[in-house]
């Protein structure tokens, strides 16, 4: 559904490209996690895939069509995005927030139909947020707000979700709840591309990982193939040990200086 072919992005003033020759794909029913240190190009990769930065090389494709040929409205019907931060200038009621997800499926002046309302309700229920529908957006906790934003992305009736650090600043429970939600949606056939710093959670939920370092794709494949000591140490510049949880997922333990790896 989403594909990057040798994508290169150069920001003005940057000596090195922010993204160099990166290729990746996202298929339906697949959860792909993008991991790597701060400033390695994770967000730039998302922005390139969504057509928000000009490409200096390669191409980004959505459903096989080059990103440049999509209008924002068309894209919004295919990809639901939960970006890093969002604060409404004027607090809105949750149900209205999610209804804004229907924008690309409504005419500019058309009123919301019964179908739109049903889609909003279904999206809120899927995210276990129907009970929040009458609350004001400024009266929600961080975890609730993220669930509402995922619900809004679902109300777009997209084929793929793109989430940029969706669990930053959430506690363990809310973080796990959000990943469980994403995993359930992926089971239902959506593709999901998630940027995250949580290597261990990514290792348990993602079907594939992309490890980026300084704008380059250092490794990609199953969690077991990507989360290897040498690659991680090279990218993060910190010693780590990699163990295996009982379900077979690799788990990364950052080491203290001088601590042996086993």
């Amino acid at each position: 559904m989403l594909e990057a072919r040798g994508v290169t992005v150069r920001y003005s003033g940057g000596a090195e490209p922010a993204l160099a020759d990166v290729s990746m794909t996202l298929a339906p029913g697949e959860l792909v996690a993008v991991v790597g240190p701060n400033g390695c190009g994770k967000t730039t990769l998302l922005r390139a895939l969504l057509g928000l930065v000009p490409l200096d090389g390669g191409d980004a494709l959505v459903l096989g069509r080059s990103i440049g040929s999509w209008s924002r409205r068309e894209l919004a019907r295919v990809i639901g995005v939960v970006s890093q931060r969002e604060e409404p200038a004027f607090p809105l009621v949750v149900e209205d927030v999610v209804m804004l997800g229907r924008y690309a499926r409504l005419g500019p002046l058309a009123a919301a139909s019964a179908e739109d309302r049903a889609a909003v309700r279904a999206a809120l229920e899927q995210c276990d947020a129907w009970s929040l529908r009458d609350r004001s957006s400024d009266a929600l906790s961080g975890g609730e707000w993220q669930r509402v934003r995922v619900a809004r992305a679902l109300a777009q009736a997209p084929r793929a979700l793109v989430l940029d650090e969706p669990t930053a600043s959430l506690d363990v429970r809310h973080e796990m709840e959000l990943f469980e939600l994403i995993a359930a949606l992926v089971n239902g056939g959506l593709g999901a591309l998630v940027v995250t710093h949580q290597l261990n959670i990514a290792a348990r939920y993602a079907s594939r990982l992309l490890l980026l370092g300084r704008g380059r794709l250092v490794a990609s494949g199953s969690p077991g193939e990507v989360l290897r000591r040498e690659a991680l140490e090279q990218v993060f510049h910190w010693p780590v040990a990699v163990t295996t949880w009982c379900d077979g997922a690799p788990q990364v333990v950052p080491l203290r200086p001088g601590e042996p790896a086993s």
Partner: protein
Amino acid sequence: MRARTALLLLLVPATLLLGIAVGPVPLAPKAVWHALGRADAPAGVIVREIRLPRTLLAFLVGGTLAITGAGLQAVVRNPLADPYLLGLSGGAGLGAVIAIALHLGGAWAVPLAAFVGALVAVALVYRLAVVAGRRLDARVLLLAGVVVGAFASAVMSAVISLAPAAELRNAMLWLLGGFSAASWHALAVFSGYAVLPTLVLLAQARSLDLLSLGEEPALHLGIDVERTKRIVYLAASLLTAASVATCGIIGFVGLAVPHAVRRLWSPLHGSVLPLAFLGGGVFLVLADAVARTAVRPLELPAGVVTALVGVPLFAVLLRRTLV
């Protein structure tokens, strides 16, 4: 909410009636009614030729200033935005003054010059604010607006002092914002310029909802953000220009009214814009009524009254936004 809407809808004819009734010669509602119905009624000339166009003009100007403020607030994502505070009114005033001083065309050309002035001002303010940082900081934007507005008013004063044109003798009074020169002709000129941008702005209601979430979320939900912003800035400049050219610089209507509407009804622009239009109309007709009666037989500019109400509200909002 229904009751509030009904109340507002009742307030519209009531304030219009009040606006016609008050003045140097107070009229009873019955006398106003008679004069509206029959040209040869005792108060016929006062009502039909002076007070009716004046009241209607105040209503329309108030309504358009309010929706202009609401639109700008959504685009810059800040409740403090207002055509006056963002420098649009100053730019429009300067454009109008220059057109009058140079005798460029008649009443229909002045709004066009004001439009050019408003566009230059908004472009300047935007550039100043954006240069300061990649993200549009509301504080910087307001500062830029105030600075550009101050510059425009300085140049305006210079033009007024230097130009010999007789038309400019009353320019200072005109700039303070008021309806003492209102006429059917002024109403026609204003409406001619204001109808289209008003409709355009109303049609943007849902896009404004998305924009107030933030530019990036708005993009992801499917609007062409840059195009929408251009449309709103253009419509806002045109509406500001039309009002400044016909009745001078009236501030704070665009600040106070959308704020009240959002609190009393909903922040969704499908209701904010039409309700702010009605509310702005009511507010400015009342302000003009106060302006005409508070220091009778003298008359205050309506802009003075709106500022007296608007500035304290601005102070409260400012504290709440910046804390």
